[in-house]
């Protein structure tokens, strides 16, 4: 049974559909990457999976159970973590408090998970008493991912985790994504930097106009000349 | 007009059933009051309702047209009332024949001089004084000059109070006071509007609430100007008074004046509402971001509408004070002069002038009738309580009136929840 299974998902805001039938399947140890041109519905798809968008047709299953249109806090309880692209930290809370909020539903785990997150992101340990709003963009992204990991999710949704970061930080974050995945967390992420992201992807989904255009392994998509020509800038 | 606008063309003409039914109900209620309480009482009620309708129109353009919430209608009403009093009552020779006017004028001159000096001090940095030093100088100067001026003032006003009572009026026609009252209220509105411009409307609510209490405190404690709690009466009427032509006719004449005022205001507002200016105001209310993106000067429009609303409140307050023929600063209460008007607007239909007038008249009838009704119910309850052997509290009358406070509050919350657009909603047309 796949970890996450989206079947023919339609949805949008205020009667206007942005998603017109998207399919994706993620296994437990997969990194899935969604790429595509602006306005293709990449972030919208991620929001639909996390219950922030009304799905009016189709199904989203988590380990076989339908989860579409459940409120986000129930999805967190069922093992899903979400890292938004912007406003993804609590600026006036310290780094440690940010992370604690991630484990809000599992307060018993805080100590153990804090150690684990500090293991993934050593800079956060040093800055644990600093308000998250004072950190640099890359460190803030680490706080955001760490916060989502604190709930011990089975699947982590990342919305453009490298947006606005310098190339150095971008590689760093993608490395961490691989490590987190290796530790047994399924990943579904949206990325602008398609080449770098597809390079670490087990599954790649190229969306256009709210529908799947290409679906394959990351490596195969990178090798496909048509994908390269239309979506990866040659 | 040669170019018909889209919003007037596309609106389907329909028989205004709702309006007719609601106004018929109000008419029946008015006739009922006339039948039960007599024509003098009924006409008084109508005049007061008309004055309130002017206040309500002022609030409806602020809240209904522009989404600005004024929680201090009372203050603007009181300003209007003060001007109506000050300009119309007879001149006080005990004041004018003494040397006090000169001293008061001198005190005012001191005040202007002090303001100019402080203002000049804030510009010292232009001539090379460091900014920090300039601020220190300006603040110190302001404190010292303030103390000097306030002491001169206390001196003069104290003498006025002891020797002449108060400065009296100007003995001018009543209409002058009404116009100046509107202007003064508009001026204060401009000051408040400027400060809260561009901030969230919560701040406007807080600031207006504050200025209303301050205006009341000023009018109440400035015995030299308003006789304070001693109140000023009688105020002259713009029409022959009850002493000359009898209660009913005099009040009817007064009512015709207020009715004409409402008609004029209504006509002008309706024109403005459909003019490009009105559409711009509504566009700003409905979607501030896109209105700003279209290059509309949001803050200027907002200030205009806020000041306009305050002017209407000042005029309405002046008409109300003249009619009651007494200026009593303590009689201005948030309940009677802010929240009652608020209920009229949100119940009638914010942004809909006709609905607002309906709301004003309907709510005022309920309001004026609720006092005897509350007392009646209280008496019943007390009789019942006495029969059961309870000892009833003594000040039942004043407590019964508190029930009205509760009812007004309940009405506000219920309307917001169940009829947020009022009984006669604004007809929103989609405009480009």
């Amino acid at each position, binding site marked *: 049974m796949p970890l996450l299974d989206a079947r023919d998902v339609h949805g949008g805001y205020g009667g206007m559909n942005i998603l017109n039938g998207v399919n994706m399947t993620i296994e437990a140890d997969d990194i899935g990457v969604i790429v595509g041109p602006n306005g293709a519905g990449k972030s919208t798809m991620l929001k639909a999976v996390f219950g922030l968008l009304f799905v009016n047709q189709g199904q989203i299953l988590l380990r076989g159970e339908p989860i579409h249109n459940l409120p986000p*806090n129930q999805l967190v309880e069922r093992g899903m973590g979400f890292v938004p692209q912007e406003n993804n930290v609590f600026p006036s809370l310290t780094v440690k408090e940010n992370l604690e909020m991630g484990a*809000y539903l599992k307060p018993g785990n805080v100590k153990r998970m804090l150690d684990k997150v500090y293991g993934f992101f050593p800079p956060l340990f040093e800055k644990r008493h600093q308000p998250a709003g004072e950190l640099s963009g890359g460190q803030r992204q680490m706080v955001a991912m760490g916060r*989502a990991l604190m709930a011990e999710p089975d699947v982590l949704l990342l919305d453009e985790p490298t947006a606005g970061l310098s190339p150095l930080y971008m590689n760093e974050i993608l490395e961490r994504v691989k490590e987190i995945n290796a530790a047994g967390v399924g990943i579904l992420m949206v990325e602008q930097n398609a080449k770098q992201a597809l390079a670490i992807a087990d599954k790649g989904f190229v969306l256009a106009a709210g529908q799947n255009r290409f679906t394959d392994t990351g490596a195969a998509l990178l090798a496909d000349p048509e994908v390269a020509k239309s979506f990866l800038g040659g | 007009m040669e170019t018909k606008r889209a919003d007037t063309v596309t609106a389907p003409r329909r028989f205004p059933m709702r309006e007719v039914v609601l106004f018929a109900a109000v008419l029946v209620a008015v006739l009922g009051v006339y039948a039960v309480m007599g024509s003098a009482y009924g006409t008084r009620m109508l005049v007061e309702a008309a004055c309130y309708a002017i206040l309500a129109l002022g609030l409806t353009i602020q809240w209904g047209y522009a989404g600005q919430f004024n929680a201090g209608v009372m203050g603007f009403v009181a300003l209007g009332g003060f001007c109506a009093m000050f300009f119309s009552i007879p001149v006080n020779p005990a004041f004018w024949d003494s040397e006090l006017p000169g001293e008061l004028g001198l005190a005012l001159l001191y005040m202007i001089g002090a303001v100019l000096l402080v203002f000049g001090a804030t510009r010292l940095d232009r001539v090379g004084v460091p900014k920090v030093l300039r601020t220190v100088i300006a603040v110190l100067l302001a404190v010292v000059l303030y103390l000097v001026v306030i002491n001169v003032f206390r001196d003069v006003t104290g003498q006025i109070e002891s020797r002449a009572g108060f400065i009296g009026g100007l003995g001018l026609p009543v209409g002058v006071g009404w116009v100046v009252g509107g202007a003064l209220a508009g001026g204060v509105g401009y000051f408040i509007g400027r400060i809260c411009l561009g901030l969230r409307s919560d701040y406007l609510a807080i600031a207006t609430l504050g200025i209303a209490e*301050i205006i009341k405190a000023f009018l109440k*404690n400035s015995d030299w100007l308003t006789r304070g709690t001693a109140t000023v009466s009688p105020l002259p009427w713009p029409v022959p008074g009850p002493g000359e032509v009898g209660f009913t006719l005099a009040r009817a004449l007064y009512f015709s004046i207020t009715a004409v005022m409402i008609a004029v205001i209504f006509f002008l507002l309706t024109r403005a509402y459909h003019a490009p200016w009105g559409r711009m105001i509504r566009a700003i209310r409905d979607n501030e971001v896109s209105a700003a993106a279209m290059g509309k000067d949001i803050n200027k429009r907002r200030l205009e509408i806020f000041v306009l609303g305050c002017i209407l409140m000042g005029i309405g307050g002046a008409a109300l004070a003249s009619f009651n023929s007494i200026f009593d600063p303590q009689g201005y209460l948030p309940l009677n002069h802010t*929240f009652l008007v608020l209920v009229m607007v949100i119940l009638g239909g914010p942004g809909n002038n006709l609905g607002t007038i309906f709301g004003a008249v309907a709510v005022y009838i309920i309001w004026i009738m609720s006092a005897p009704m509350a007392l009646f119910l209280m008496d019943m309850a007390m009789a019942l309580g006495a029969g059961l052997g309870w000892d009833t509290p003594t000040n039942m009358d004043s407590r019964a009136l508190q029930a009205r406070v509760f009812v007004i509050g309940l009405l506000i919350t219920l309307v917001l929840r169940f009829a*947020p657009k009022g009984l006669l909603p604004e007809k929103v047309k989609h405009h480009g």
Partner: protein
Amino acid sequence: MNELVFFINNVLVSGSVSGSIYAIGAVGVTLVFSIMRFAHFAHADMMTFGAFMVLLLTSVFPGAGAAFGVPTALVMLPLAMALTALLAVGIDRAFYKPLRAHGVKPIVLVIGSLGVTLMLQGLIRLFSGTGGQSLYVDDRKEIFRLALPIEGVRVPVVITEPQFYLFVLTIVAVVALHLFLSRSRLGKAMRAMSDNPDLAQASGINTNTIVAVTWVIVGGLAAIAGTLLSLDVTFKPDLSFFLLLPIFAAAIVGGVGRPYGAIAGGFVVGFAETLAVFNWSVMLRPFRDSLPEWLLQSGNLAFVGTEYKIVVPFFILVAILIWRPTGIFKGKVI
């Protein structure tokens, strides 16, 4: 030196008294704002309600205080806090929650809270009458006179018993609030929701729970603030409109949504008020030999008369809105 003691009595003590009351009141307003994003005008009447509950309970069990050696009103305070908290949660359920569910603009909630404040006012006055009543039903107010060990000082520093309890209560309330917000899981979740409601929800924080917890705390604080006020003077049901302005001014001065800022703002407003109505000519007395005649002749050097006290918070409000609308501690941008 006697003038200095006079200053302490009239400015330091009474400034701290009104500062404490405004601070506790402003914290409530700012908490509501930070979680629900609207200016809660019914807060002052919630304070009155809390004080009224204390008054009721005190007159029902007048002897309860003697068992603990403190005024009965203080013994009854926790119970009154619980009742006010219940009221606050109930008001939210009945009046604010439906409006929020409709997705109305915040200003509509402001108007709703004005409706609620009128209802509370009507109810309280209906039951209590409109006169003032002392919370000290059976107890006598002690007065502490602290003579300063300085030669030549004949005037003692005077603190009344209720003022002493007021300071203790304020400190306890502030420390408890601080511990709650910085240590407890719910307190941190409240701060998180104030920072970023969407992310709080995405972290699994149940926003409805936080809203309810907020109202519980706001109600409790309102009861404390109302009781502090009524202890200092007397219980009066019609104080609310005069309290709203200083409380809002304090919250805005401190930066809207910042509880610690609200505490600071409360003391700023409280001291500004007492300094403004203080008659400074007393302080000039020691220097009477070296000062010009005209300055001493005017007996009144107060900035505003007590009847214009309400001008002070308004002036502060206007000044802060013009120069720094986010408050001294950079509150929410509105």
